[in-house]
């Protein structure tokens, strides 16, 4: 390492520190008590307090919210990926009048946030009697997830050579057979990528559950975290413990899915 590179290393690890400090603060803070934190916000736990994490893990609320988050993420991904795959298949491999028009209609969904439509969505979910239910959150999430998923899948599906489809057709494979037995199995990596993007999006969604999940029994983790931080406003250690616990699933997921997420977010952005 030449001397000239020292500032670069210093800068890089300073940024890394800025990322790590809040995370470490949350994890360690959960092992302290609020008195310790008030006395010295930066110190190590002394003594280590296990009751914050213990109480939360023993209480039903955390597990309940975890389950709600998992359920809603699974529902919304389970709807958006198959629906988008079917639509992307048609957009990629069929020619029909109005195809580009329909495709553009879907891509327009990328251009505005859910906040714009949240008022009518609320009214509609209420009319459908889905307020407070997992489907009330999962359905709009799935609908808003379609554009990105279709835009990623279409060029991938279009890139398969015609000869593949011709050969399949000669062997008696119709449009559905080709989709189900050939296209989808060959697209496993990209399907995994779009699924993981959909899962992360749903997992972190806040505004929609905030409006739809009127009953605390149906809350997802982000709602639980905000509520916990108002409910135990003065008890910093407890809030940090709860927040840390709700971070863990996302970080474990990240450790496994990082490459998929990166690929999903960068295809297209660069290659066009």
């Amino acid at each position: 390492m030449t001397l000239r590179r020292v500032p670069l290393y210093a800068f890089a690890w300073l940024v890394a520190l800025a990322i790590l400090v809040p995370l470490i603060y949350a994890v360690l803070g959960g092992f302290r008590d609020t008195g310790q934190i008030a006395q010295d916000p930066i110190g190590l736990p002394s003594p280590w307090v296990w009751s914050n994490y213990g109480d939360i893990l023993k209480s039903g609320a955390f597990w309940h919210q975890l389950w709600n988050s998992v359920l809603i993420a699974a529902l919304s991904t389970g709807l958006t990926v198959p629906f988008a795959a079917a639509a992307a298949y048609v957009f990629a491999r069929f020619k029909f009048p109005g195809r580009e028009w329909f495709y553009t209609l879907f891509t327009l969904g990328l251009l505005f946030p859910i906040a714009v439509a949240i008022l009518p969505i609320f009214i509609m979910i209420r009319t459908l009697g889905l307020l407070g239910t997992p489907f009330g959150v999962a359905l709009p999430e799935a609908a808003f997830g379609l554009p990105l998923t279709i835009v990623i899948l279409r060029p991938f599906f279009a890139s398969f050579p015609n000869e593949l489809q011709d050969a399949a057709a000669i062997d008696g494979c119709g449009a559905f057979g080709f989709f189900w037995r050939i296209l989808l199995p060959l697209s496993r990596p990209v399907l995994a990528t779009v699924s993981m993007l959909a899962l992360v999006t749903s997992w972190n969604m806040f505004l929609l559950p905030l409006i739809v999940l009127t009953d605390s029994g149906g809350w997802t983790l982000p709602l639980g975290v905000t509520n916990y931080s108002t409910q135990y406003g003065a008890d910093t250690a407890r809030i940090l413990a709860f927040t840390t616990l709700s971070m863990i699933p996302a970080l474990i997921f990240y450790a496994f899915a990082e490459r998929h997420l990166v690929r999903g977010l960068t295809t297209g952005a660069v290659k066009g």
Partner: protein
Amino acid sequence: MPPSQGDSATLVRAGRTTRPAVRRRRGRGRLATIALFLAPALVLYLLLVVFPLFQVIRYSGYKWNGLGPLDDFVGLDNFKRALSDDVFRGALKHNAIIIGLSLVVQLPFALGVAMLVNSRLKGRALLRLLFFAPFVLSEVITAVVFNLMLQPDGVLGGLNVDWLGDTSLVLYTCFVVISWKYFGFHMIIYLAGLQQIPRELEEAALIDGARHWEVFRYITLPLLGPTIRISVFLSIIGALQVFDLVWVMTGGGPVNASNTMAIYVIDWGFKRFQFGYASAVAVIMLVISLVFALLYQRFVLRRDIEGALTTMGT
């Protein structure tokens, strides 16, 4: 976009059949297949994305609390009221400030970090993993942790600065936290762009005696153009819709000093139950987003390859 090849299968199977009746039947079958595949996505999308957009435009013409009959038509009054409301104009200004800061501070920072991580740095894989990690944490978690750190008795509160209570400071505090969460995302995009640039190009220039900043200015930056244009687009669309993080950190306060358009919509819609008025503000947001997106597409992205909108995930 490569030509579509859907009908090759039909053609092959049709073989030598030439009778028009058969052909028409096959044609109809093909359309039925298309409809069948498209229908689920289309129905869901029309019902929960397209239809609500028309509804929000309709609501915006009424005075309505979201419950009773929709019969008190007020024309453009809601829009006039919003545009003359100082709080809304403040919110609009705050969105504009966040956009400006993102372009001037966050994106160049992300680019710098991307170049650093792209160079032959020891531990760069680990650094990249770290920098991108906040992307998977929800804005809510980010907001709650930073909120505690920024309290007067928190880790960062010892500097005798009231990060969240000072009305002239709070928006910038929020911006820094937003950047903490999102610069890694832009870094990832830039990194992918940088990896497309052949290393020989930069090395050749260096051998020819170009300085490092000249290589950056005349080789790296121009070749990174399309990537930067996409990242700018995503950043602006994202900044127009800032909600979760600021809502949890400050609720738009103190005294509306960190209010944003989305917060304003939720505030009037779900706290004060003025659905008609909130809808008008949502329509203003919609128009700003669409006009910006279309102009940007038309004048900036036009020269880049089609289909570049892929990364709109955030």
